[in-house]
C-alpha cells in the first residue's frame, strides 16, 4: 500500500491495532452529559455516528410503470422487493435471477395509472355489491381457495368478452379516478417490505418531465410511512393536473410537507439527455429566469443527484474536462432522450454533475445560494423490476433486452437523426449511504446531509473526511472514523474555520470483496478564482503498485489490464485491495470558493457486452467497448471563504 501525503511516499507498517476500540463501533457522545462518567461508559449507547454503508437502488421501475409494462414487464412489486432482499425470482422472460448480495434499501419509482376493479371487488364497495354479479364475485373471493379461483376466471372471461355488467364498465373505464389504485399499491407494498434494521423500502415515485424530449426527470423520496404518503397523490406531468415545470414539483413537495408534516425531496438524473436544460445558469427551459427564488428552491428541494445509471454516466464529459483521461466513461452524447434534437457542444455545460458543481459556486456568488450543492448517488433505472447493476448479472433497461444473444442489436433508440445503440447501455449503479442504522429516517437524513456516494455497480467502501488538523497518525488510527468526525466533516459537509490554512483530507477506499482491485484514488477539485473564472483539476492521491505520483499530483501510467477477452475473466494480480491517503490541497487559496470530491477507480474488468459474447454467443459490434474501469464518486466537501 502506498500512502501519498504532501508529496511524501510512505510504506505502510504493521500497526498495533487496538482491539477493544473498533473503528466501526466508536461513538460520538453527542448529547450525553459529561458529569456522570459511568453513565457514558458504553461507546455504543446513544451513538448516531454513521458506521455502516448501506447499499441501495434509488430508481427502479416495476411492471406498474406504463412504459415498463408495455415492454412486457410482468414482475410486480413484491417480486421486485424479494429480489432486492436476496431471494431468487423469475424475470418477465422466465430467466431465474438473483443478486450477488442483497441490497439494504430500495426506492421503487413507478409511474401511476391502473385499473381498480379487482381491489373494489375484494373490498366489496357499494357499487360492486349493488350488482348481483358483483355481489357473487365478492362473496366467492371472500371464501378464497377454489371459489376465488372460479370467480377470477369468470371475471376475466367477462372482462375479455366485454360482458361485464354495464355499470361496471362505466365505473371502471380508463380514467384517472378509477384507474387510481396504483399509488395505494405502491405505498402499501413499500410498507409491507420495510423492515427497520434489515431492509428499508422507501415510498417514492418518478416525476417524468420530458418536454420536447429534454430529460428533466426527477425521482421523489419520502421519509414517512403509508399513513402520511396516502394523504396525497403523486405529482404528475401531464396537463391539466400535472406540469413538466420543476417549480410545480417543488410546490407539490412543499404541499406534501405542510399537509402531512412529513418530509420529502426530489433528485434528478440524466442531465446528459436534457440538451443543456438540467442545470440552467441563466434561463430555465420553462421560460423562467435563474434568480434568487429559483436557486433557493432548487437547493432546498434537490439536495441529491443521480450521477450514474443505465442511460449513461453523468460525472463529466471529455469536452468539459479535456485534461481528465478518465472523463470519457460511458457517456451518451448524441442528442436528447428521443433524439429529436442533436447535441451541440455548448449544451454540455448544463448537463454534467462536475460542471454543475462549478457553476453552483458562481451562482452562489451572484445570488447568495448555491443551487447545485448536491450529494451524489447511483441507480439502475431498470424497467425490469430487477435492480441489477453488475456487469455479469445485467438484465438490461427493459424486458425486451433481458439477457439474449440478440439483445445487443436492439438500439435504445434510433431514428433518421441518430442512434443510441444497445451496447451503450450501462450496467450501473448503486448508492452507498453512510448511516448509523438501516431505517427510513436514518437513510433519508443521511441522503439529505449528502453523506452518500455513487458507484457504477461494485460495492467498494469509501471514506472521505475534510478538515484542517488531520495528521498521518489519524489516518492510521484504529479510531479513524471517530477522529474523522471529531476533527472535520465527512463527504457532503462544509469546511469551517481554518483561518487561511489549506484543508487536509483523509481518504480511505477498500475494494468490493468480490470485484476488481483498486487502480487509484483521486481528488477532483473545482474552484472559482477572484475574477469569477471556474476551474477544475484532478489529483491522484494514491495509486497501486510502484507507480509514482509526479510533482503535478498525477500518475500518468495506467494500471494495466488483465482481462481475458476470450473468456471474459480477469484477475487481481494488479491493483490493490486498499488505498488510503492524507492529502493537503497544494494550490489552496483561502479567498476562493471550492469543492472537493473523491473518485475511486477499479482495475479494468469486462463490460456486460463481453459476458454476452462469451456466455450467450452474442455478436458484438466492433464499436462496442468490451472493458471498463468501474468507479465510485463521493459527494463533495465544500469550502467557502465567507
Amino acid at each position, binding site marked *: 500500500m502506498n500512502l501519498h501525503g504532501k508529496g511524501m511516499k510512505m510504506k505502510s507498517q504493521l500497526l498495533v491495532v487496538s482491539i477493544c476500540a473498533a473503528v466501526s463501533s466508536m461513538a460520538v457522545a453527542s448529547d450525553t452529559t459529561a458529569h456522570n462518567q459511568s453513565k457514558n461508559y458504553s461507546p455504543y449507547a446513544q451513538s448516531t455516528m454513521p458506521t455502516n454503508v448501506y447499499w441501495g437502488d434509488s430508481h427502479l421501475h416495476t411492471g406498474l410503470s406504463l412504459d415498463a409494462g408495455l415492454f412486457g414487464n410482468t414482475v410486480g412489486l413484491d417480486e421486485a422487493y424479494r429480489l432486492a432482499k436476496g431471494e431468487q425470482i423469475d424475470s418477465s422472460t422466465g430467466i431465474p435471477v438473483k443478486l450477488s448480495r442483497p441490497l439494504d434499501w430500495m426506492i421503487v419509482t413507478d409511474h401511476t395509472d391502473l385499473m381498480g376493479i379487482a381491489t373494489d371487488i375484494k373490498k366489496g364497495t357499494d357499487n360492486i355489491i349493488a350488482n348481483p354479479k358483483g355481489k357473487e364475485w365478492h362473496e366467492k373471493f371472500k371464501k*378464497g381457495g377454489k371459489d376465488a379461483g372460479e370467480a377470477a376466471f369468470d371475471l376475466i372471461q367477462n372482462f375479455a368478452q366485454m360482458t361485464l355488467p354495464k355499470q361496471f364498465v362505466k365505473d371502471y373505464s380508463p380514467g384517472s379516478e378509477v384507474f387510481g389504485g396504483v399509488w395505494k399499491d405502491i405505498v402499501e407494498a413499500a410498507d409491507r417490505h420495510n423492515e427497520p434494521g434489515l431492509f428499508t423500502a422507501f415510498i417514492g415515485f418518478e416525476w417524468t418531465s420530458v418536454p420536447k424530449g429534454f430529460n428533466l426527470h426527477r425521482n421523489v423520496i419520502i421519509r414517512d410511512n403509508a399513513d402520511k404518503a396516502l394523504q396525497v397523490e403523486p405529482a404528475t406531468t401531464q396537463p391539466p393536473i400535472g406540469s413538466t415545470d420543476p417549480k410545480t414539483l417543488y410546490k407539490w413537495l412543499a404541499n406534501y410537507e405542510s399537509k402531512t408534516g412529513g418530509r420529502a425531496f426530489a433528485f434528478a438524473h440524466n442531465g446528459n439527455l436534457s440538451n443543456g436544460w438540467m442545470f440552467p445558469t441563466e434561463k430555465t427551459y420553462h421560460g423562467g429566469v435563474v434568480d434568487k427564488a429559483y436557486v433557493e428552491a432548487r437547493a432546498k428541494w434537490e439536495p441529491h443527484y443521480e450521477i450514474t445509471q443505465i442511460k449513461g454516466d453523468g460525472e463529466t464529459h471529455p469536452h468539459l474536462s479535456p485534461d481528465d483521461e478518465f472523463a470519457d466513461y460511458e457517456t451518451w452524447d448524441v442528442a436528447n432522450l428521443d433524439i429529436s434534437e442533436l447535441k451541440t457542444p455548448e449544451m454540455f455545460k448544463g448537463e454534467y454533475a462536475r460542471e454543475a458543481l462549478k457553476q453552483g459556486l458562481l451562482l452562489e456568488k451572484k445570488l447568495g445560494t448555491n443551487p447545485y450543492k448536491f450529494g451524489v448517488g447511483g441507480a439502475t433505472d431498470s424497467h425490469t423490476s430487477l435492480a441489477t447493476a453488475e456487469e455479469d448479472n445485467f438484465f438490461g433497461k427493459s424486458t425486451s433486452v433481458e439477457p439474449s444473444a440478440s439483445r445487443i442489436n436492439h438500439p435504445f433508440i434510433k431514428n433518421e437523426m441518430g442512434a443510441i445503440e444497445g451496447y451503450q447501455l450501462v450496467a450501473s449503479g448503486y448508492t452507498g449511504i453512510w448511516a448509523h442504522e438501516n431505517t427510513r429516517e436514518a437513510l433519508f437524513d443521511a441522503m439529505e446531509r449528502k453523506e452518500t456516494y455513487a458507484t457504477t455497480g461494485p460495492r467498494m467502501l469509501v471514506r472521505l473526511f475534510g478538515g484542517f488538523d488531520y495528521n498521518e497518525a489519524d489516518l492510521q488510527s484504529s479510531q479513524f472514523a471517530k477522529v474523522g468526525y471529531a476533527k472535520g466533516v465527512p463527504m457532503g459537509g462544509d469546511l469551517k474555520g481554518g483561518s487561511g490554512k489549506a484543508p487536509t483530507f483523509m481518504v480511505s477506499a477498500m475494494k468490493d470483496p468480490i470485484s476488481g482491485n483498486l487502480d487509484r484514488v483521486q481528488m477532483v477539485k473545482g474552484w472559482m478564482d477572484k475574477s469569477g473564472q471556474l476551474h477544475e483539476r484532478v489529483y491522484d492521491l494514491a495509486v497501486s503498485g510502484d507507480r509514482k505520483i509526479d510533482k503535478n499530483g498525477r500518475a500518468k501510467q495506467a494500471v494495466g489490464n488483465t482481462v481475458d477477452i476470450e473468456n471474459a475473466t480477469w484477475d487481481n494480480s494488479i491493483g490493490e485491495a486498499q488505498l488510503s491517503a492524507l492529502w493537503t490541497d497544494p494550490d489552496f487559496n483561502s479567498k476562493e470558493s471550492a469543492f472537493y470530491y473523491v473518485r475511486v477507480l477499479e482495475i479494468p474488468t469486462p463490460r456486460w457486452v463481453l459476458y454476452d459474447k462469451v456466455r450467450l454467443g452474442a455478436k458484438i459490434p466492433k464499436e462496442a467497448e468490451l472493458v471498463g474501469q468501474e468507479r465510485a464518486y463521493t459527494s463533495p466537501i465544500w469550502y467557502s471563504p465567507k
Partner: protein
Amino acid sequence: MLKKIISEPLVHFLLFSLIIFILFNNTEIVEENYKVIVSEGRVEQLKNDILLKKQRPHVEQELDIAIESYALNEIYLREARELGLDKGDRVIDRRLRQKMEFLLDEMASIQEPSNQELKGFYQANIDNYLTPYIYTFKQVFISTDDDAVEERIKTQQQRIAKGLEPQGDFSILPSQINSKSLQLVVKDFGEKFSQQLADFQTNQWIGPIESGFGKHFVFIEERQSKQAIPLPSIKEKVTQDWQYFQRQKFKQAYESELWQRYVIEVSENINREDG
C-alpha cells in the same frame, strides 16, 4: 335457357325482394353499427374533465365540443378495430397481457390464511424462519498488497503461540464486531470470509482466514446458532410469504386451466429438416 329465366317475372320479383331484404337488413345492422352512445356517466366525466382543466364549470359549447371529440375518438377506434388494426399490435398485446396479470395479482392476494394453514406453512418452510447465526468477534487484518506476507503472518502466529494478540495493518474494516447476524458479517467481509466462521472454535485466535481484501486473524467470542423464531412474533411475515406463495400458485392454477382449454399447434417448419 338462361335468357328465359332472366326474363321470367317471378324471378324478377324474387330478385327484387331479395335485394330489398338485404338492403333492409343491412340498414338495420348498419344503423346499430354506426351508433355512438354517449352515456350520462360519460357526459358527467367530460364535465368533470373541463372543471379540472379550467377550474370552473363548463359552458354549453365546451361540452358540445368535448362530446363531439369524445365521439370522434370512439369512431376512430371503431374504424381502427374494423380494419383489424388492434390485431397483432405488440403494444396493445402487451398492455392486455399486463392487464390480465394485474387482475390476477389483485385477485390472488385477497385471502387471509386460517391459523391452521399458517401453522402448516410455517412448519413446512421452517428454514426461512430461523434466527441467523449471530457473531461477536475480533478481527486483525493482514494486507496482502504489501510484500513479505508470509513472514508477517508467521510473526503474528508466533505472537499467538506466546499468548499475545496478533497485530495487523490499518484498514477501515471494523476490528470488533458485536452481535452481528451472519448476513451483516457478509456485508462487511464478504461471503468467503463469513462462511468459514461457522467451523471454528470460539475463544481462541484462528487464522489466517482469507477474504476478498486480504487475510485475517479472528477471535470468535460468541456464536449463537440458528433457532426457530416463534410463529406469533413473525405472524405478519409468514402471512405475507403465504400470500406470495398462494399468488404464485393461483397464477399457475389459472395458467394450467388455460392450458387445458387451449390446444397449441406448432407448425412444423421446413427449416427444421436441415437442423
